[in-house]
């Protein structure tokens, strides 16, 4: 019984049928739900067509490539590959390690020549990198020469590496996840993110650390086309200690704690505008730029705070301005206007202060859209791909070449075979025959049968 199942999976016909089914499924997969709409949307769209809806649900067509039946097809292909590999290995091993060494037993050879040679065959073969064995028998000698015997393993490596890639896919399916988090650019923090599932349901997953966004920049070229999306991120532990700080942009993610954090989108926050405020400490010369919400208190020094209490889009024709309230120990200690066009200060009291507060215009508050992913299968897949290409290189570009000869007093008979790329080998074989003087005297020209 096991034997019969094994044989069934060995058959090339089943493999081809399997590949064809996967081919059809993949073609279908690019058409059934191209927009990756979640199940909920499909349920709405097909509310009046119960049969279509049923098939979408049952065959998981909203996410065909992760459906149970597509997984089954891949598993079946994996079984094919396993069975073929197990079946093939002994044959390959036998053919490469224990080749037939006598010309008269070498089977039907397509390349043959015979005659009286002018030069020795063995040195010519050695010069070309062949491993040559000579054995005496019945008053003559048998010559067996071969090159590239390990190239027969190429096919086997290819199939095994495909198996590794499929295995990596299964590991990925079981362990990988992907989700998103929106973090406000004015120091917003997240400790968890929204996991994305194909059926549209959502769940939260803990990061294991705190992620703070200290700024988001939407950079543009002069034409308004996007130049870069950048987020400044800080990773904090539970006690608020900084573990890592990084600026990420598209194509340059942050790696932390086994997670990769990507810049994937951004969103304008509903709460609207923030004032971009620069505070210069005239004592030390230190300056910082803050995004401040209306009414939010900026602590400049112990007991000294500033806050924005009013905003005019155009203050008496002088442009955009905000009114700043200065407070000492919680008590109002003066108000002044600061103008975006004249950020160096309009108000004498402000300039006389230790801190110069200036207004640099309003800014839209954004939240950076982060994508958070983990895929432990990637190294397995990379290894599989590497072996796949190595195997292909061996399988397609090298060949196991064998040359047999029977040398006796009456002359030499020579035959050759390559398990792949017979045309190139024929050229080489003819060249060898010419070199040793076979075929030159029209005694037995080398010729492909």
């Amino acid at each position, binding site marked *: 019984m096991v034997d019969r199942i094994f044989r069934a999976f060995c058959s*090339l016909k089943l493999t081809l049928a399997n590949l064809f089914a996967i081919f059809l499924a993949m073609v279908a997969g690019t058409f059934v739900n191209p927009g*990756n709409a979640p199940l909920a949307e499909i349920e709405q769209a097909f509310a009046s067509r119960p049969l279509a809806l049923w098939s979408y649900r049952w065959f998981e067509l909203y996410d065909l490539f992760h459906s149970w039946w597509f997984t089954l097809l891949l598993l079946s292909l994996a079984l094919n590959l396993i069975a073929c590999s197990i079946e093939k290995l002994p044959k390959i091993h036998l053919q490469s390690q224990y080749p037939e060494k006598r010309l008269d037993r070498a089977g039907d050879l397509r390349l043959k020549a015979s005659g009286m040679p002018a030069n020795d065959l063995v040195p010519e073969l050695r010069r070309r990198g062949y491993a040559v064995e000579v054995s005496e028998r019945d008053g003559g000698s048998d010559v067996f020469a071969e090159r590239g015997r390990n190239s027969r393993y190429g096919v086997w490596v290819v199939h095994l590496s495909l198996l590794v890639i499929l295995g990596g896919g299964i590991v990925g399916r079981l362990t990988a996840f992907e989700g998103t988090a929106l973090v406000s650019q004015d120091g917003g923090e997240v400790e968890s993110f929204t996991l994305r599932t194909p059926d549209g349901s959502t769940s939260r997953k803990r990061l294991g650390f705190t992620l703070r966004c200290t700024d988001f920049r939407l950079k543009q070229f*002069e*034409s308004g086309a996007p130049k870069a999306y950048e987020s400044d991120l800080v990773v904090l532990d539970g006690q608020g200690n900084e573990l890592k700080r990084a600026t990420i942009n598209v194509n340059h993610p942050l790696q932390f704690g086994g997670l990769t954090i990507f810049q994937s989108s951004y969103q304008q926050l509903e709460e609207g505008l923030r004032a971009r405020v620069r505070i210069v400490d005239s004592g030390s010369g230190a300056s910082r730029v803050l995004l401040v919400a209306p009414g939010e208190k900026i602590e400049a020094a112990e007991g000294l705070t500033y806050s924005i209490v009013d905003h005019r889009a155009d203050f008496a024709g002088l442009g955009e301005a905000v009114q700043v309230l200065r407070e000492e120990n919680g008590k109002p200690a003066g108000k002044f206007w600061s103008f975006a066009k004249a950020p160096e200060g309009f108000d004498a009291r402000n300039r006389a202060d230790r801190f110069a507060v200036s207004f640099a215009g309003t800014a839209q508050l954004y939240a950076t859209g982060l994508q958070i992913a983990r895929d432990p299968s990637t190294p397995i897949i990379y290894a599989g791909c590497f072996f796949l290409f190595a195997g292909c290189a061996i399988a397609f570009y090298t060949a196991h070449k064998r040359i047999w000869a029977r040398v006796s007093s009456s002359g030499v008979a020579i035959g050759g075979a390559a398990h792949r790329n017979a045309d190139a080998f024929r050229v080489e074989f003819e060249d060898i025959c010419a070199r040793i003087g076979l075929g030159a005297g029209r005694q037995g020209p080398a010729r492909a049968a």
Partner: protein
Amino acid sequence: MFEDLLQLGVGLRVAAVGAYAGAFAGYASSLGLPRRLLKTGASVLAWVGLTAHSAYLVARWFAAGQVEILARERTGDVLTTADRFWYLISHPPFTNLFDALNFTAWAMMLCWLLLQRKFAFQVLGALASAVALVAMGEAMLVSEQAIEPLVPALQSYWILIHVAMLFVSYALFTLGAAAALLYLVRSGTSNAILGRAQAAVVAVLLALVGGVPLLTGARFEIAPSFLHQIPSRLRPGKFLDAVSAVHQLDPATGKTMKLLLPVPGVGPFLLAALLLFLAAAVVYSLRDREKLGFRLTLTGFVALTFGIAVMVAQIASAAAVQLPAGVQPVEPGPYFFGIASNFALGLLALLWGTTLGFLITARWRPRIEALLPEARRLEDVTYRTVIVGWPLLGVGIVLGGVWANEAWGRFWGWDPKETWALITWIVYAGYLHTRITLGWSGKRTAAIAVAAFAVVIFTFMGVNLGLTGDGLHSYGAG
């Protein structure tokens, strides 16, 4: 400086097109007149063209690099020497449709000239230069030829390798399929079988390109464009003309969508061609109806020719488009037919060319067969191109996955383009298996190679035509 490079590029491009045209004439005439001079001349011209074309691509590449640098410096970025070097090479010449078409032509000629060293078949040379000329001619119809800085998603060194490898593999598959078709002709596949396949494939692809509007209303829709001006990045105060597709507000979803309008006079021709090809496919399946099948195919071809001619005339003339009542585009007019539906035109050109090839073959079969190289050698060409193109495609796909992993944290996402690339790879793996493992050869494998090429075409054009979902690779769709 970069404008000098672009100026130089224009000249080089003209030189390349001229040399390719000469090479085509040389290859084609050396089929009928077997003179050594013609062969050598064609080959020399092809090399000259490729050299000029390569220089053009390099010029365009560095010009694009300077655009990237200038665009950044003008928006206040301070670049280090390393940054400047990176941006100089960051924008290879295949990131928009105009450049991609030119690059396709270049890859085609490069592969042919490498192949020619071993398989000097003039007929393949003529086909390769014809494809290159058509691709470069179509590029001239593309309205957006200016170099724009790359969007953030494409700002990665992976684009340099990933895309180039795939283009070269597609060029190899094209040559392989051409050789396989010639093999089928040379090895005596009957005109009826060839005609049936040709007519059926053309009918199906016309239906796919035209879609529902063509099938139900004899309308062929493409996206009109509008002309607007953008400030020059390099010369303050100067304005440049820019062409973009027109959009319309979808009342149901509130989203803006690309507006599609029927091109006057094209639809009926294409629908007629579709029906004629369909009829031809049926007639060719009947016994002893070859003459009728040929006539139907010929009539379909004439209809197709008129359809394409009317469309190209309207795209090239840039005459204003009359909007139907009730259509309120987002952008201001005037509107004209640009080449937003570029991949459709490419596909139509391919259908037109292969049909023409079939008609010539069917009409002068014995003479054509006599001109072709030995069947076994043609089969060898297909095998060799696949055996080089298949690993290139594989590595290209995997490098795309590595890029995706770096940029989005997943190696594989079943995006339509990557899925179709994998489908292509599997189909060619099937070709190699039937040949190597099952020991098939001859017509069956040649037929598989031709069918596999249809998959390549779909991967290259169909996905970007919007036949499948949008995915991540849709930036090429105009």
